[in-house]
């Protein structure tokens, strides 16, 4: 036993190892997959990213090539640094710094040594780069903006982030993805489909040639061109008006829901986010906390709707037959309500108002009274209120518009549950929520929602979801943009309101803005605490509101 013990142990171990090897290498070994084989280099071929045109077929966004010098620090051999630095037009100090930085990152993974070569530099370098081991040139496709406006609408592209890759297996490191605006919303159309080339590598990591004569290669598919609804001239004019102002202009074509312009003040030149100084510019933009140009105020800022909201209050009152077009409510400069005799001031100048003059003079008392009557009708406050709130929401307020922007805000149209929670021990009623009647209090809207509301008024009872896409080459736009959203208020009532709205410009609060020859219907507004200055298409200071539709167009 003692004699054989060692022999047995050695033999048993040996057999154990052989079984284990058999398991690993023969039994559990996976079949060959070209995608997983490191000996085959997988090179993605990137198709042309789709162009973006405006509604008048003006080319807004196209592509431009750009060349980066890449480095694999581990492969860099002794090179003539002087000559190399001269070629790249950098100093030796910069050169050493870049080498140090890239080496610290990784010796084996390629990093960008110098980004965005000029075309002339590329021409010279392309021939000589072979001399410098460890360096090579990589072509990239950059976006080219043929316009200086609409940065917030167009968005921008950038390299995919880690989370992009995790969410969508299509992407791999270094790919370009839309990060904002149309570039993001219509990424799937714009990007096309990248192709794959399989290249056989040898032991020394050199490419020998295409694998299997290219039979396994996948061709790339070019991205689709897009036409967007923006009118770039209008957009440009809007941005000019908004220069150095904080605010937003939204113009929607009511009969289609197409967004003609979406101006966010202040805007920035989309070309800032392309090219060598991209990150510097980006951080400058993001640091600007006063104007925050990267934030699209047309979509993201919420504020009390103010007087334009009276249109809806009036419409609902008419529809609920609380008033008719001839009902008269008198105003003595303020609206006194409640046991404690609270008062809501009114700037209409007093007097007796019917619905037309109430709108044209923006009479607070009038709308406070009809709101109170609407909510208190038959005494069932909670039910009435919910019905009211639901109708308000049917104008696209207080919810996501479900448009084709990647960003947006819901705004706020409270329902009865909200007030039940707000006043748990207290029976709330019309007077508690009276501020709603003039678009203040808990009511919050975004500029695009307000513009959309007006487009529903202009259409007299329906709206198309506002959208930015007009045409996708080779595909139709989403069904939801071709579908009417109906509001349950009769056309007759809309017509009555419209008379009021047009009087705004003839005799009411907006008469200074009347433009002879164009019949404008609109409503100005200022939410409390905000300075009231009116202007067509314009907001001269923050937070003043103006909505209108002339025969066709609607502005806020």
């Amino acid at each position, binding site marked *: 036993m*003692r*004699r054989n*013990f*060692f*022999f047995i*142990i*050695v*033999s048993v*171990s*040996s057999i*154990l*190892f*052989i079984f*284990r*090897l*058999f398991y*690993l*290498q*023969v039994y*559990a*070994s*996976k079949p060959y997959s070209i995608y997983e*084989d*490191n*000996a085959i280099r997988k090179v993605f071929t990137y198709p042309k990213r789709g162009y973006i045109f405006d509604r008048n077929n003006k080319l807004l966004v196209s592509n431009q090539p750009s060349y980066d010098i890449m480095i694999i620090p*581990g*492969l860099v051999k002794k090179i003539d640094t002087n000559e190399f630095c001269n070629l790249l037009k950098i100093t030796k100090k910069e050169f050493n710094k870049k080498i140090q930085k890239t080496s610290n990152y990784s010796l*084996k993974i390629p990093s960008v040594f110098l980004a965005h070569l000029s075309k002339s530099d590329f021409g010279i370098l392309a021939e000589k780069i072979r001399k410098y081991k460890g360096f090579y040139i990589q072509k990239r496709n950059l976006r080219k903006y043929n316009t200086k406006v609409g940065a917030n609408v167009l968005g921008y592209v950038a390299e995919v982030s880690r989370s992009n890759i995790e969410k969508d297996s299509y992407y791999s490191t270094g790919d370009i993805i839309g990060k904002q605006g149309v570039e993001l919303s219509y990424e799937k159309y714009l990007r096309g489909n990248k192709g794959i080339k399989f290249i056989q590598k040898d*032991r*020394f*990591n*050199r490419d020998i040639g295409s694998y299997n004569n290219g039979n396994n290669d996948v061709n790339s598919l070019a991205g689709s061109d897009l036409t967007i609804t923006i009118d770039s001239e209008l957009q440009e004019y809007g941005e000019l008006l908004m220069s150095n102002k904080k605010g937003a202009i939204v113009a929607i074509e009511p009969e289609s829901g197409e967004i003609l312009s979406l101006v966010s003040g202040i805007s920035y030149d989309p070309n800032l986010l392309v090219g060598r100084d991209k990150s510097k510019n980006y951080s400058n933009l993001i640091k600007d906390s006063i104007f925050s140009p990267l934030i699209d105020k047309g979509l993201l800022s919420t504020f009390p709707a103010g007087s334009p909201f009276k249109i809806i209050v009036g419409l609902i009152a008419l529809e609920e037959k609380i008033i008719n077009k001839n009902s008269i409510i008198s105003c003595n400069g303020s609206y006194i309500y409640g046991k404690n005799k609270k008062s809501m001031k009114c700037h209409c100048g007093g007097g007796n108002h019917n619905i037309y003059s109430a709108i044209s003079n923006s009479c607070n008392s009038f709308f406070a009274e009809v709101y109170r009557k609407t909510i208190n009708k038959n005494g069932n406050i909670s039910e009435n209120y919910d019905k009211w709130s639901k109708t308000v929401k049917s104008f696209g307020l207080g919810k996501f518009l479900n448009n084709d922007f990647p960003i947006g805000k819901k705004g706020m149209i409270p329902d009865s549950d909200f007030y039940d929670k707000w006043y748990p021990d207290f029976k709330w009623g019309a007077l508690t929520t009276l501020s709603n009647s003039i678009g203040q209090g808990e009511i919050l809207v975004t500029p695009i929602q307000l513009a959309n509301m007006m487009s529903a008024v202009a259409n007299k009872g329906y709206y198309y979801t506002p959208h930015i896409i007009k045409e996708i080459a080779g595909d139709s736009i989403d069904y939801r943009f071709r579908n009417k959203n109906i509001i349950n208020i009769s056309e007759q009532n809309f017509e009555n309101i419209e008379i009021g709205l047009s009087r705004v410009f003839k005799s009411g609060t907006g008469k200074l803005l009347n433009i002879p020859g164009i019949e404008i219907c609109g409503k100005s507004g200022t939410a409390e605490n905000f300075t009231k200055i009116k202007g067509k298409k314009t907001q001269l200071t923050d937070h003043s509101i103006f909505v209108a539709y002339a025969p066709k167009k609607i502005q806020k």
Partner: protein
Amino acid sequence: MIIQRKNFLRLDWIIISIYILLVGFGIGNILSSSISGEEVSILDLNTLYGKQFLFSVISIMIAFITIYIDVKFYEKFSSIFYFLSIIILLSLFFFGKRVNGALSWFPIGSFNLQPSEFVKITVALAVSKYISDYQTDLKSKIDQGKLFLIVLIPIIIIILQNDTGSSIVFLSLFLVLYREGISQNYINSIFGIIILSILTLKFSVITSLIISVFTTALYYLLKRKSRNKILKFFAVSLLCLMTSLGTLFTFNNILKNHQKNYIKVWLNLEKDPLKIKKMEKTILYNLNESKKAISSGGLTGKGYLKGTRTMGNFVPAQHSDYIFSTIGEEWGFIGSVFIILLYTSLILRILYLSEIQKNKFSRVYGYSAAAILFIHFFINIGMVLGLTPTIGIPLPFISYGGSSLIAFTILLSIFIRLDGNKINEW
């Protein structure tokens, strides 16, 4: 001189052939695992394979010298070698250089020398000398104690130098002691401790206690001739319990974090997915990558210098401790089995030759050499295949490293020398 020449012819050419095959294979694989795009020049000392080639030339020269030296030299001077090597080992505390946390290197020029590799030889010689001594009686507790001391002193020093992996190698000499007649109980205890430790860590103290009590009871029930059965049964059971508790204590309080992790990985103890994820980036990474590389080799391998994972340097230390993964990938199942069979035949050949030695010193030394080679082979390949815990010791003759190649060469050539003299009278 005439006698010397005759002796040369009597060298065991099977061992020598296997040795040359393994060393050659080693250089080839180090080349494969370390080049990245440059021209191959075997004499370039800036490359790992160039260095290994130089080491192999030095090793062969030293082997010639070892074989040329008179056979009695090794036996006579073995105690001096032993004490000398202990002193050198101790001097590491003063002049040593720390590499990867282990204080086990002497910097000599641009090379580092690892004395613990050479201590394996001197301990083998010392053990052989002591056992083969006329006055040594392995049944005597005092002599046993002395023998254990010979083995334990270097183990303790090396553990203090934070090179636990190397110290474990010396435990293989118990196989030799067993062959030479120490009590069966020692071997039983060692295996018992290993099994109990695994049971304790994997399951619980209770499980290991139940199993050990049951086994002991069965043993004493079946064993007829034994006095004080019940007393012995309780004593053994108590020992088992103490072993379990001791294991738990050692694991929780003495082992360092990385050592604990190696054991956790080996026994699959970690259940926290977050920690497992973290391990996958550190210690599990090596293991997973080496298993992947081996697995990707398939039946026939990807071909020499065509291993894609080897080329991409996926497995860290793939030229040293993990070199077997390179073999697995490029040579496949067939090549790996070939290497395993080469080692097995080498060890079995040494064992066979040891058995037929007339001289006791030669026999014990042969056993020791076989034991040392075996434990390296077992732990290294077991680790790469994910069967044994991660213990960083080299694969003899193949892994990159001057000290280990030269030391293993000396270890082997001394045996070749002793074996070549088996017919001569001493």
